[in-house]
């Protein structure tokens, strides 16, 4: 049902509340990523398989085979039609989902990049540039997808400090997500707690803006909020640090909150921000005794919700802002748990005289109720109807924002592989 017609107090809740669905994959899931519109959920498995689920049917829409070890990270491309997968099998692959069913062959990656070590994660910078963090590598590596040329993102300080190995990267959000002309800002986090900011124009032209040390242990995750004002760092010293980010020169980081599990002193497996100004932060705690996701309000730093329902420790998290869903993977079974809002249908919103009844009532038609004997009356009605029909109704143009205020992006629909269907029928 159209969200606009629903009770706004139910629709506009800012975070999911209830476990609504569990997806049992054939293989253990290690990482997940919602597509930009939340239509699909790409899941990476322990054996290297990538399964894309349709979020309407909760069934697999396509399977991509190519990796031979666990998938570390998946990211949808700037236009939602490419998928970037990084794996422990030392490769990063780019999949063009437009090619499904296009040719006779099974879909193979359009780029298959080999590296000298297992991959922590790969990240889009723009349409043609990606950044990759590799195991035991001191610098992140940029790859130009057109030439497949690789280049390390060096820090050209006069006295290079030992900052440890680069573990992860994050792209600073910009107004035009795929434009190649603009400079992009990349953050990298190291195994010794260093965060570095780089301004990148292309593979050869980049500039180290700023570097700072936030802790002395591994930086497990780095996240910047959609509006670019908040930075959150998940370190292996059992705390999540939240900073206010001021992109002046030099960049200013102000510690806002530190989230810790005071009692059990647990580490955090994964973290995700909510949309826009990142008013909420969700995290999965490490340890077999906890089966929940914690949700904090970021302004006050207080815990507002514990998402329950899973039966095991939770690992990777992703948040679909459009559909207001949070997905998380279980450590033991590899199932995917989905939390969302349960909105009670409000049918009376469709028509004002709509009446909701408790039980079924047999409708007794009155003798002359639907008779059409008054021809004059009918003609008048027709005239009114045609007048109404004359006003053109715009069915194509999308509103710039959806009900929850998310920017609408053109949606990508996975093509149907008719030949595979043929194959299933024949075999």
């Amino acid at each position, binding site marked *: 049902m159209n969200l606009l017609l629903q009770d706004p107090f139910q629709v506009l809740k800012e975070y999911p509340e209830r476990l609504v669905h569990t997806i049992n994959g054939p293989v253990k899931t290690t990482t997940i990523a919602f597509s930009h519109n939340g239509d699909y959920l790409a899941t990476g498995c322990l054996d*290297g398989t990538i399964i894309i689920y349709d979020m309407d049917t909760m069934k697999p829409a396509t399977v991509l*085979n*190519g*990796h*031979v*070890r666990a998938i570390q990270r998946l990211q949808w491309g700037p236009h939602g039609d490419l998928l970037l997968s990084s794996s422990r*099998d*030392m*490769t990063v692959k780019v999949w063009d989902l437009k090619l499904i069913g296009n*040719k*006779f*062959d*099974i879909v*193979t990656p359009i780029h298959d990049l*080999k590296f*000298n*070590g*297992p991959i922590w994660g790969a990240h889009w910078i723009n349409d043609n540039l990606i950044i990759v963090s590799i*195991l*035991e590598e001191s610098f992140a590596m940029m790859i130009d997808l057109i030439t497949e040329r690789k280049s390390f993102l060096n820090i050209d300080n006069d006295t290079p400090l030992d900052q440890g190995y680069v573990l992860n990267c994050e792209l600073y959000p910009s107004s035009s997500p795929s434009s190649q002309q603009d400079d992009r800002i990349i953050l990298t986090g190291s195994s010794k707690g260093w965060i570095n900011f780089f301004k990148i124009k292309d593979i050869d032209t980049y500039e180290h803006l700023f570097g700072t040390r936030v802790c002395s242990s591994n930086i497990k995750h780095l996240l910047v909020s959609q509006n670019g004002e908040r930075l959150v760092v998940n370190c292996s010293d059992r705390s999540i640090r939240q900073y206010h980010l001021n992109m002046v020169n030099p960049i200013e980081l102000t510690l806002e909150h530190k989230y810790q599990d005071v009692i059990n002193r647990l580490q955090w497996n994964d973290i995700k921000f909510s949309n826009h100004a990142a008013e909420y932060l969700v995290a999965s705690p490490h340890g077999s005794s906890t089966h929940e996701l914690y949700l904090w309000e970021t302004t006050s730093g207080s815990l507002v919700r514990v998402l329950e329902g899973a039966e095991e420790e939770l690992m990777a998290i992703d948040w679909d802002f459009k559909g207001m869903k949070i997905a998380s993977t279980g450590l033991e079974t590899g199932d995917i748990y989905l939390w969302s809002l349960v909105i009670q249908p409000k049918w009376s919103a469709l028509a004002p005289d709509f009446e909701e009844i408790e039980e079924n009532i047999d409708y007794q038609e009155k003798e002359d109720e639907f008779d059409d004997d008054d021809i004059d009356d009918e003609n008048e009605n027709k005239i009114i109807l045609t007048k109404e029909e004359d006003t053109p109704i715009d069915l194509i143009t999308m509103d710039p924002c959806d009900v929850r205020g998310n920017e609408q992006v053109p949606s990508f629909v996975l093509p149907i592989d008719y*030949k595979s269907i*043929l*194959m299933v029928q*024949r*075999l």
Partner: protein
Amino acid sequence: MSLLPSWCPEYSPLKINPVTGLEVYCTCKKPDEGELMVGCDGCDDWFHFKCLKVPEKYRRLVAAFYCPYCQAGITGKDKDDTNKPLPKTLWKRKCRVENCYEPCAENSKYCSEEHGLQYMRNVVNQGMTGNNEKNADIVRRMLSVSEGNSSIFQNIGEDAFIDNSIPTGMDPMLHKEVIEQDSGLMELVHSQDQCNNVTMKGIQERITILDKYIEWVEDVNSKLNSSLEFENGNNDDIAGSSVKKTTSKKRKRKGGNRKIVVRKTICGYTPDVSSVPCTSEEFGQLYRDESSDETATEIKGVCTKMKCHRHNDWMSINSDQLQQEMETAESNNERLMVLIKIRKRQLNCQFYERLSKSHSQDQPTPS
């Protein structure tokens, strides 16, 4: 609201005529006068075939009879049970011979073998005499193909001839136009060719190269081991042991007296496995020369770390990758084979359709 047919009088519960005192039956409420009747399975009353407007020749075809009142739900066992559907009269299947109203025998379309033969004889006769020109032609051709042998005649149509390639000499012009010049089929055949001869061969070559390189690394490792064993004066058998990733250094630290056989293996990872850098003897020499330098982790681009966390398991990852590529190519091949088969079948159908069309145009009258 009555479900009774228009010819049927309204239901009357009358069983005995009060005037004559005789039992009465049927919708007509007359006594039994020896006319053919049928008993209703719902209400146990008897009904005349005539009154039901059923021809008497259907008498042997009744399987389960329900009178119009039971069918309308007025009488019958379940008349008050609204959940059950109303009963309906069921008929047995009639023999295929036109004038025979006997029910079919079990697993047959005919009442008897005799009638079966009679029916088929009729069909063939009709075909031969040519009531229906098209059928006649088909029957005649079938008969001429089977040459009087009934088993061949029976098997006509069993064979999926549409998957067979079209015999040469059967309208070569049309064959060329429909099948040989079909771009879809050509593309498919080309892809399969590509898959078989280029992709799979390429993968096979890469597997051989990788195996060769892995063999070289193992050779280097065994040479390093044997030389170390020699240096340390440890003559214990090492061939049987395959314990890897343990350094000799560690052993020394743990105490040289312990009789543990430890194999010294290098990681051996190189980004380019296409050729071995040098012979294993040379490499062993180089390794011993540079072993004094603790920080060096590479000789000629080959990783020489003992316990290499980073390239852990690289050999099986690489071979798994090739295996995966091979499997993809194989399933692609399978897929293409099925697609080619489907396309060929479509084209054969097209060919035969057009052939028969041109055939019927050429010969409007039988010769």
